[in-house]
C-alpha cells in the first residue's frame, strides 16, 4: 500500500522532476570557454611575413597540435611588413589557403566580381564560400553567425544602412601587419569612415568600382543636351575650370525652356549641397566623434548657401528626385546626379538607351560647387570588414587585397568611354578633395528614414526659409549625433 502510494507519487511527479533536471542542465551556458580553447588550438592566427627577398616565413603565435607548418622555401629574418609588395599573392601560405574563407554579402556578384573571385580561388587554391542574405536580415544573420561561432571572414559593409552600428560592433579591428595598412593601395578616405579610437574596421582600395561606386557624379548625354540648344558640354566646362553651380543651373534652365522636361534629376539631393565640403554632420576619425555642423555659425552659413542652390533649382521647376536611370537614356531629363555605380558598364544603367550615340556616348562630370577649385567630391561609406571571431583573418586580408583591386575585376575594360574613365579616375584620386556624407547614416541610425524627411523639407523650402527649416531640425540632428557618439564611445573598446 505504502509503496504503491510512493510509486504513484513518484510517477506523477517523475515527468516534472525530469523536466526540471533537463531545464537546469539546459540553462547551463553552452559554448563556453572550453569550446573556445578547442577552436583556438586549431585556428589560431598566423602571421605571414614577407622577407625583403620575396620569400616567406610563417610565424605562429601559440602552439599547435599537429597541423603542418608552411615554409614556402627560404627562411630569413622575420620582419613584419606593413606593405604588400607586388607579388603578394604568392606569399599566401598553404595552411591559410586550406582553411578557405567565408564571405557574407547582401547582393550577388557582378560578372567582373565573380571573375575576380574565381581567379583568386585558382591562384591560391583557397576556397571561397559566399553566402548571400537579403539586406533586410543581413545584420541579424551576421550577428547570429558570430554568436554561433561560425563568423564569416569577409563581411560586406558597403551600404550605409549598416553604418555605424554594425560596422563597429560586428567587425574586428584590422591588424596593421596582417592587412599591411601602410600600403598606399588602401583608400584612406574610405577607411577613415570606419575608424574609431585608432582602430579601423573596414578595408577599401582606391579606384576600384567595388568600393568607389558611391562617389557622386553628374551624368548626361551630349546629344540630348545639344538638341536642347546647349553648346558647351559640362565636360568641356569642367576641363576649362568653369564648372560650377551657376553653370549647371544655366544648362538645366536652357534644357527646361527648350524641352519642358526636367533639367536635372537627383538620386540624393544632399550630394548637390555637400559638394561645398560641409555636410550637416561631420565625423572626425581622429577623436572618434560626430559633430553637428549647425552649431558652428560659419559652417551653418556655408550649408545654408549650399542648400539654397537646390532651392533655386526646385523653385524654377528644374529638378526632381528620382531613381529612374532610364529617363536619361530616353532624353526625358537633361542631367542626372547620382552615384558612380553607373560608370561601370556592367551595371547596365544605360542598357536601353534610345538617344543618338547610344550608351557609349554618356559623359560624366564631378558634382559642381560654388567654384570648381572649391569643389569636394561627396561620397558615402563603403568598406569590407572582417567579422569578430573570424577563423581565417589572414585569408581574408589576402582576399580583400585581391578582390578589391581594380586590376582583377577587368575594370579597365568596363568604362563606357575614355572621358568617363578620366573623370572617374579624377574623383577617386588620392589628391582630390572629398567630403564624407555621413549625415544620412547618423540621422537614420536613430530614426529610420528621418534624413529623407529633412532632405525633402530642405529642398522644397524657399531659399529664405532654409535657415528656419535647419533650425527646426537642429534638435533631431543633435540627438542623433549624441546617440551615434554614445554608440562609438561605449561599444568600441
Amino acid at each position, binding site marked *: 500500500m505504502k509503496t504503491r502510494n510512493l510509486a504513484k507519487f513518484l510517477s506523477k511527479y517523475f515527468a516534472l522532476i525530469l523536466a526540471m533536471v533537463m531545464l537546469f542542465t*539546459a540553462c547551463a551556458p553552452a559554448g563556453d570557454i572550453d569550446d573556445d580553447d578547442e577552436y583556438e588550438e586549431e585556428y589560431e592566427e598566423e602571421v605571414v611575413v614577407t622577407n625583403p627577398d620575396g620569400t616567406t616565413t610563417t610565424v605562429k603565435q601559440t602552439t599547435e597540435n599537429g597541423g603542418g607548418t608552411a615554409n614556402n622555401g627560404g627562411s630569413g629574418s622575420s620582419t613584419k611588413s606593413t606593405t604588400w609588395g607586388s607579388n603578394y599573392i604568392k606569399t599566401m601560405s598553404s595552411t591559410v589557403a586550406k582553411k578557405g574563407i567565408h564571405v557574407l554579402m547582401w547582393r550577388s556578384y557582378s560578372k567582373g566580381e565573380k571573375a575576380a573571385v574565381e581567379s583568386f580561388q585558382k591562384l591560391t587554391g583557397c576556397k571561397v564560400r559566399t553566402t548571400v542574405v537579403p539586406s533586410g536580415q543581413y545584420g541579424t544573420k551576421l550577428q547570429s553567425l*558570430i554568436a554561433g561561432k561560425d563568423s564569416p571572414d569577409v563581411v560586406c559593409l558597403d551600404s550605409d544602412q*549598416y553604418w555605424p*552600428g554594425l560596422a563597429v*560592433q560586428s567587425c574586428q579591428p584590422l591588424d596593421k601587419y596582417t592587412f599591411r595598412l601602410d600600403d598606399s593601395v588602401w583608400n584612406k578616405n574610405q577607411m577613415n569612415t570606419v575608424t574609431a579610437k585608432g582602430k579601423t574596421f573596414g578595408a577599401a582600395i582606391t579606384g576600384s568600382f567595388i568600393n568607389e561606386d558611391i562617389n557622386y557624379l553628374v551624368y548626361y548625354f551630349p546629344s540630348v543636351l545639344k538638341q536642347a540648344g546647349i553648346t558647351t558640354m559640362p565636360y568641356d566646362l569642367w576641363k576649362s575650370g568653369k564648372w560650377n553651380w551657376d553653370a549647371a543651373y544655366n544648362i538645366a534652365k536652357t534644357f527646361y525652356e527648350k524641352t519642358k522636361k526636367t533639367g536635372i534629376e537627383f538620386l540624393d539631393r544632399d550630394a548637390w549641397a555637400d559638394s561645398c565640403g560641409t555636410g550637416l554632420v561631420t565625423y572626425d576619425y581622429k577623436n572618434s566623434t560626430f559633430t553637428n555642423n549647425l552649431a558652428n555659425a560659419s559652417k551653418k552659413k556655408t550649408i545654408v548657401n549650399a542648400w539654397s542652390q537646390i532651392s533655386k533649382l526646385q523653385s524654377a521647376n528644374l529638378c526632381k528626385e528620382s531613381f*529612374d536611370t532610364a529617363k536619361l537614356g530616353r532624353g526625358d531629363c537633361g542631367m542626372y546626379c547620382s552615384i558612380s555605380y553607373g560608370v561601370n558598364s556592367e551595371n547596365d544603367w544605360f542598357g536601353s538607351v534610345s538617344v543618338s550615340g547610344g550608351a557609349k556616348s554618356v559623359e560624366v562630370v564631378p558634382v559642381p560647387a560654388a567654384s570648381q577649385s572649391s569643389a569636394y567630391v561627396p561620397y558615402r561609406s563603403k568598406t569590407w570588414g572582417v567579422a569578430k571571431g573570424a577563423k581565417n583573418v589572414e585569408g581574408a586580408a589576402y582576399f580583400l587585397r585581391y578582390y578589391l583591386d581594380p586590376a582583377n575585376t577587368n575594370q579597365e575594360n568596363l568604362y563606357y568611354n575614355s572621358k568617363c574613365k578620366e573623370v572617374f579616375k579624377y574623383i577617386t584620386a588620392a589628391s582630390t578633395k572629398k567630403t564624407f556624407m555621413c549625415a544620412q547614416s547618423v540621422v537614420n541610425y536613430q530614426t*529610420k528614414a528621418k534624413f529623407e524627411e529633412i532632405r525633402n523639407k530642405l529642398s522644397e523650402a524657399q531659399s529664405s526659409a532654409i535657415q528656419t527649416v535647419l533650425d527646426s531640425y537642429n534638435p533631431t540632428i543633435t540627438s542623433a549625433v549624441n546617440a551615434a557618439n554614445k554608440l562609438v564611445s561605449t561599444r568600441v573598446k
Partner: protein
Amino acid sequence: MESKVIQIPDLDKKRRVKGIESKKSMYGRMFILPWCIGMAFFFIIPLIQSLIYSFSTVIVDPGEMSTQWVGLDNYKTILNEDPTYTDNLISAVTSFFRSLPIVVIVSLILAMVLNQKFKGRTFFRAIYFLPVIIATGVVMQLLTKNLNGVDAIITLSADTTNTYTSSGGGGGMDFTTILNSLRFPEDITKTMSSLITSIFNTLWSCGIPIILFISGLQTIPEQLYEASKVEGATKWEEFWYITLPMLAQTLLLVIVFSMIDLLTSNTNPVLNQAYQYMNDSAVYDISGAMLWLFFAIVAGTVGIVIFLYTKLLLKRWS
C-alpha cells in the same frame, strides 16, 4: 497511513472521485506535455533571455552574447532620448484599436452576405480566401516596396514625401496619379488616397475572418430564424438577438485572430523600429527594451479585451 477513520463512506467516495479526476487530469497533462516541453525550450528560455537583454548592454561576441546589467537604463533611453519611440507606440496602439472593430465588422457583413443563397456563391467564397495566399508575407512585400531602381508594382500610398517617379510601362497602377489626373484639389486627393489605401489594407486582412465567420454562421440552426419570423421579428432584431449571441465563440476567435494579425503585421511602426535597431545597427538591448515595453502594453490590452468580452458579452449571450 489513514489518520482520520471517521466518515469512511465519504472518504471512499472522495477517493474514488478524486481517482477519476486525478486520472483525467494526468491524461490531460500528458496530452499537453510535449507542448510544455516545446514551450519551455523553444519559447520561454529565448524569451527570458530577450528580457534580460532589455535590462543589460549586449555585445555580440563569438560564441555568446555578453551582457552587462544596467537595470532600467535602456527603458529610460527609449522613452526619453529616442525621438520617435513614444510616437510609434501611441500610433501602433491607436491604429490597432481603430482597425480591429473595422476588420471584425466588415468581415461579419461580408460573411453574412456570402452566407445567403445566391448564384455564384461558391465562386465568391473561393475568391475571398485568396488574399490569404497572396497578401501574406513575401509576395505583398515584393509588390509594394520601392526597391533600388525598381518601382513597386502597386503603389497605393498617398505619401507625398515619396516623390519618386515611376518608369514607363505600367506606371498607371498608381492611384494617386489617377486621382491627380482627375484634377481634384490636393487635400481631397490625399484623403481619398489614404482612404483607398486603408480600404485595401483592411480588405486584404479580412480573408480569414470571413471564412471563420461563415463557418460560425453555418452552425446557427435555421429553425431559430423561422421561429423568429413567425413571431414577427425584424431583420435587425434577428441579427441582435439570434445571430450575434450564437456567434459568440466565433466572434472571440475572430477577435483573437485579428488581434494577433494586426499586432504582428509588418506595418507596425514599433516593430519596424525595433527591427531596424536589431538588424542594421546590432543594438539588441535597446531594441529588446522597445519590444518588451510594447508587449507589456499589448498583453495588457489583449488581456483586458478578452476579459471584458468574456465577462460582459459571453455571459449575456450564453
